């Protein structure tokens, strides 16, 4: 008796602890475990691209798509979005075999609603540029401007960066990836570091020779998609049209770079925008607050019904439901699950379903009591008899959730995941939590008052 009461107390304490974790991790700024809100709740843009890979052999598609993702990711990062998501998805199974347009690239840009420039940047072809140092006085001007800008930033002032700063310390030379004949991965004979060797065409070779001749002792920076990837110093004039980029990259990075340089453009045939979705921040915020509202009202009405109908067991079911909610929310944070409006709906639905197991058990318990069993026995038997129904019923819902997850688009997946997690946590909550609480208070006395507390219905 006392053992089960201690266990009940521990469960309650753990539940409160988990609830406190949910709360703390939400109110603390820069929390490690915030809720992950989907774009429809936080506002932002969701773009789906179809990648045409018809000229790429099957064995190389996965690699090309990986390279494509890296390229787009770099461009999106350049766009200054916080936590963008770029992922590859295969539509596969459901489209015809001839349709090679089955690889999808999904780009999510939280907080971005002006998608025009983002779309242009994503669709652009990559650029390889060689840039030379600006004249001394301009570099000095750049350094001064940079210093001023950093000082202003440290002081918390916001100033518009001057043009010198935007132009950067390097100037165009006219030599770009267009003049490249091929790129190759090599390794340094002595240091074994990976090197990307470049071979220019005739026109490019002449241009390269004249640029290196004019810039001996200076830096010739190599830019990819507008970001410097290597800043080597020119030692002498280079004729013959061959150059090497050695930087601090890993062999894998060097290999990707070579692949990209060779393909000249994106590592696939064509990137086509299939769908766009943008949600303004005001709409997203409203959806979120209404979702929370609906959740609170859902809890209130269900709790009211349970206590009114099932009395004391109903009260314990409400506590179990509270612990259930704390556990599920903590799982959402820890896994982490991206919450969309559909996901929130799935969670609210699972709250209603979580009660089902409790109801099954209580009804069974009541039958046992009617049959003349004492309270403890009725609780024990009620649980064991209801278990088969709970197991079979919930398994069928889990099967639906798994299939939904398997086939779904990201929207459907969010719902399936929240529903699936909800169902499993609800089985735990009914079978472990409610049962422990009921056994902890069930006393072997059959007085009318105790029977009233464990009875059900609005009357009697």
């Amino acid at each position, binding site marked *: 008796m006392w053992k089960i009461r201690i266990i009940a107390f521990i469960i309650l304490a753990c539940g409160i602890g988990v609830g406190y974790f949910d709360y703390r991790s939400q109110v603390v700024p820069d929390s490690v475990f915030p809720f992950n809100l989907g774009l429809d709740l936080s506002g932002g843009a969701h773009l789906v691209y179809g990648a045409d890979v018809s000229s790429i052999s099957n064995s190389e598609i996965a690699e090309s798509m990986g390279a494509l993702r890296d390229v787009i990711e770099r461009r999106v990062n350049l766009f200054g979005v916080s936590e963008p998501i770029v992922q590859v998805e295969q*539509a596969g199974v459901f489209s015809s075999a001839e349709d090679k347009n089955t690889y999808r690239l999904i780009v999510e840009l939280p907080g971005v609603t002006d998608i025009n420039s983002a779309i242009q940047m994503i669709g652009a072809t990559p650029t390889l540029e060689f840039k030379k140092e600006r004249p001394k006085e301009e570099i000095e001007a750049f350094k001064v401007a940079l210093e001023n800008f950093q000082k202003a930033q440290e002081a918390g002032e916001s100033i518009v960066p001057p043009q010198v700063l935007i132009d950067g310390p390097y100037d165009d030379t006219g030599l770009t990836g267009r003049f490249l004949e091929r790129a190759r991965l090599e390794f340094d004979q002595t240091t074994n570091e990976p090197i990307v060797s470049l071979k220019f065409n005739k026109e490019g070779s002449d241009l390269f020779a004249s640029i290196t001749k004019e810039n001996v002792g200076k830096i010739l920076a190599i830019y990819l998609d507008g970001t410097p990837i290597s800043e080597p110093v020119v030692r002498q004039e280079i004729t013959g049209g061959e150059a090497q980029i050695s930087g601090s990259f890993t062999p894998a990075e060097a290999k990707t770079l070579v692949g990209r340089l060779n393909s000249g453009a994106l590592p696939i045939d064509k990137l086509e925008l299939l769908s766009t979705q943008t949600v303004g921040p005001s709409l997203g915020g409203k*959806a979120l607050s209404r979702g929370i509202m609906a959740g609170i009202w859902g809890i209130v009405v269900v709790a009211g019904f349970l206590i009114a109908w099932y009395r004391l067991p109903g009260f314990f079911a409400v506590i179990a439901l509270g612990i259930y909610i704390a556990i599920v929310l903590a799982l959402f944070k820890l896994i982490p699950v991206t919450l969309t409006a*559909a996901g929130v709906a*799935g969670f609210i639905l699972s*709250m209603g379903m979580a009660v089902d197991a409790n*109801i099954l058990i209580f009804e069974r318990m009541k039958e046992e009591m009617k049959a003349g069993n004492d309270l403890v026995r009725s609780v024990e038997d009620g649980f064991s008899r209801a278990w088969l*129904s709970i197991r079979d019923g919930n398994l*069928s*819902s889990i099967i639906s959730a798994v299939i939904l997850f398997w086939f779904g688009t990201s929207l459907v997946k969010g719902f399936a995941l929240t529903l699936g997690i909800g169902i499993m946590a609800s089985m735990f909550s009914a079978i472990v939590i409610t049962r422990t609480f009921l056994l902890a208070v069930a006393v072997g006395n059959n007085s009318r008052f105790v029977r009233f507390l464990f009875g059900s219905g609005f009357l009697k």
Partner: protein
Amino acid sequence: MTSMFVITYRKIFFAISGLFVLAAFAAIFFIGLNFGIDFKGGSILEVRYPGGRPDAAPVNQVISDLLIEALPVQPTEESGFIIRTRALEESERVALENGLSFDSAYPLEEVRFNSVGPTLGAELRSKAWVAIATVIMAIILFIAYVFRGVSEPVSSWGYGIVAVIALIHDVVIPTGIFAALGYEIDSLFVIAALAILGLSVNDTIVVFDRIRENLKNKIDRDFKIIVGKSLRQTFIRSINTSLTVVLVLLALYFFGPESTQHFALVLTLGMVFGTYSSIFLASPLLIVAEKWGKKK
């Protein structure tokens, strides 16, 4: 008792269900389903004019001047419009929003924009069908497996097939109601339909489980009476469970985000008809299955 009443007058309940299903099919075929843009392709643009909106007529004019096929614009509660068009390219969206601001005479704010190309729409549609078919197959197999020990007087496959008849009933009726109301059939609708499949089976399984238990305990020799008693024993549970789920769904409908309002409605309808079917359709159908078994 209430439950024997269900068994005795089962033909009346079959007729009621049959009528509902027929009416639903009629609505689906004659009125047709109004597919959302995620299934047929197209764009939805919602804009808001913080400083008051222009009249609908010039807005429609702007859209047709841009040679964009569109439905008449629909005013929103928050001084804006919802504009449904064919799938727009990014450049067309920019041109449209410029046009809608009437040279900045009416500054506007984009509330949401959603565009789905036709290929993606067709793909999602076939995905939805495959998902529904797979769930139904999985459920028949699952029930046949769970009830594998039961062969008398109804085979375990009988239970599976009856459960599937009930769940088709539960999904078709809300679909018909949506067709009649002209509400959109979109991804969320399909999610709701699939969730109904799971919930409906859950409900039916609980009744079947009780029948199985009562069969094992041989509480009566007459299958009809066993079914009737099982129904009585699970009746309150069925109603109360549905009631709690419907309560949270109503909370979602009235207080939840607009985007999931129709979703809550489909699920509520599915729950109500699902509860009806597990009491008034599935269990009495088992008696029909038993009679067929005897004839053979």
